[in-house]
């Protein structure tokens, strides 16, 4: 479904601040794979997400979605295949527009936007049913401006908007990191359910080790722009946080350095 082939990316090339963001990274996701990504600060996790979604173009290497080379395809064109939830709960929704208007925008993912009405009786019914799946009562507030929602509600809505058109690939970039523990748990549970129900091929960056082990069927670990460890389904099943940290230290020769890491 998603193939990343020898992708490299430099930040500030040719200056004193030159930094390797991604170096020769390879990754392959089968349809239905749910891969969690962990790594220390500056390991290249976010760059990986940005390269896949098209926010950044790779300096070398190729990206394939469903067999098509999309390396030079722009972000807005790639988004017909890719759903994305950002870390910042404010990033995935338009605050001055209503819940149903936001959903109408998401509903048109990757399709031409013309002069037909965005919110009609028919689409409103679809939106209501989708919102009910979140179970947080947003279906009763569809005319409310999104800016009035709490961070957790906005992130749940972002998740719904990113997924309900069933994109080929779902990218989750620490999408629970900015929420309080209870809200984070809610969004995590929603993520689990939605990904399972819709069988979405998913790549999720997280700082929460326990979450990284609990969710998904594969786990990869990054360091200094490289994917240094991959756990497939069989090995991931019995993995513990201690083992994970141990492996990391062994390979990278240092302790997992991340000021926000949550051991679970």
């Amino acid at each position, binding site marked *: 479904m998603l193939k990343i082939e020898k992708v490299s990316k430099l930040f500030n090339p040719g200056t004193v601040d030159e930094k390797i963001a991604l170096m020769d990274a390879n990754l392959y996701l089968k349809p239905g794979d749910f891969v969690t990504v962990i790594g220390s600060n500056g390991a290249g996790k976010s760059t990986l997400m940005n390269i896949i*979604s098209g926010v950044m173009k790779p300096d070398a290497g190729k990206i394939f979605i469903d067999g098509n080379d999309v390396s030079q395809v722009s*972000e*807005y*064109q790639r*988004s*017909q295949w*890719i759903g*994305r939830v*950002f870390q910042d709960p*404010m*990033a*995935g*929704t*338009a*605050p*001055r*527009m209503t819940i149903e*208007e*936001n959903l*109408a*925008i*998401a509903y*048109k*993912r*990757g*399709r031409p*936007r*013309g*002069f*037909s*009405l*965005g*919110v009609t009786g028919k689409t409103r019914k679809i939106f209501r049913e989708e919102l009910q799946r979140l179970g947080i009562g947003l279906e009763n507030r569809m005319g409310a401006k999104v800016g009035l929602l709490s961070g957790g509600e906005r992130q749940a809505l972002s998740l719904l*908007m*990113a997924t309900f058109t069933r994109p080929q690939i779902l990218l989750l970039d620490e999408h629970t990191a900015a929420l309080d523990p209870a809200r984070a748990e809610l969004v995590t549970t929603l993520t689990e359910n939605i990904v399972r129900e819709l069988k979405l091929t998913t790549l999720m960056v997280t700082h929460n080790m326990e979450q990284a082990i609990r969710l998904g069927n594969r786990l990869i670990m990054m360091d200094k722009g490289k994917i240094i460890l991959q756990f497939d389904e069989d090995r991931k099943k019995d993995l513990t946080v201690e083992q994970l940290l141990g492996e990391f230290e062994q390979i990278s020769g240092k302790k997992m350095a991340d000021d926000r890491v949550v051991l679970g």
Partner: protein
Amino acid sequence: MLVSLTGAVESGLLYALMALGVYITFRILDFPDLTVDGSFTTGAAIGTVMTIGGTPPWLAVICAFIGGALAGTCTGLLHTKGKINGLLSGIIMMIALYSINLRILGKPNVSLRGEDNVFDNASIIVIGLILAIIVKVALDMFFKTNIGLSLRATGDNSRMIRSFGANTDMTTIIGVALSNALVACSGALIAHSQNGANNSMGIGMIVIGLASVIIGEAIFGAKTIFRATLAVVLGAIIYRIIYALALRVEWLDAQDMKLITAVIIICALVVPTIRSTVNSKLTAKRRTEEVLASIHAKNGGGR
């Protein structure tokens, strides 16, 4: 007095189209577009010269609309494809249009006296009212369509709308083009109502447009698009009324109007900021006292 008031409402209705254009860029797209100063005159020039050339006045106004859209498209292209700062792209186009407008007009002042006029068959107030209502309702509808929604989202959260596959360069260009089309259309109508166009009639138009938007929103609110567009139309009329009243003040002159407009805008922008700062300070103070009082009460109970 009554005559000047009627005149104010008349021109307010015609300027309302321009204010709606400014509303699109300034509020919806969050793009301060200064092209307006040039494109207003462009519209006036096209509307005047074509009418003199024998084109039916209505067709001339429609051509002005198209001319404004072209000017806006250029600004949009400079900003999105040329990656030029938004303010600067507007200024560049405004200066470029100054020469273009002189070319269209042929000379700085062109009179329409004795020519056909848009307002030959009906009064300004009737046509102005009909046009303002049509444009207002059309915009309300447009901003509910899928393309209109993506335009609003571009100004609200461009990163989000890109992640759903909308080309934000395209939506920006469409928005700026539509805005300047309305501005030019307003320019052509004003030229017809004043029986002529001159090369400097657009100067300061962006500020008048902003004043209309801000005054309207301050008085009538902007909770929904429907309310906001209504507020902008009414704001444009109120601005003209203030203008007419200010002219009646003995020691004020027509040439002071730009200064008065600037002062109105400064007040409209600064007063709400001061008010909210003071309010939040007072609330913080009150809440702190309440919290402290409740803590003291608890401690007292424990003794």
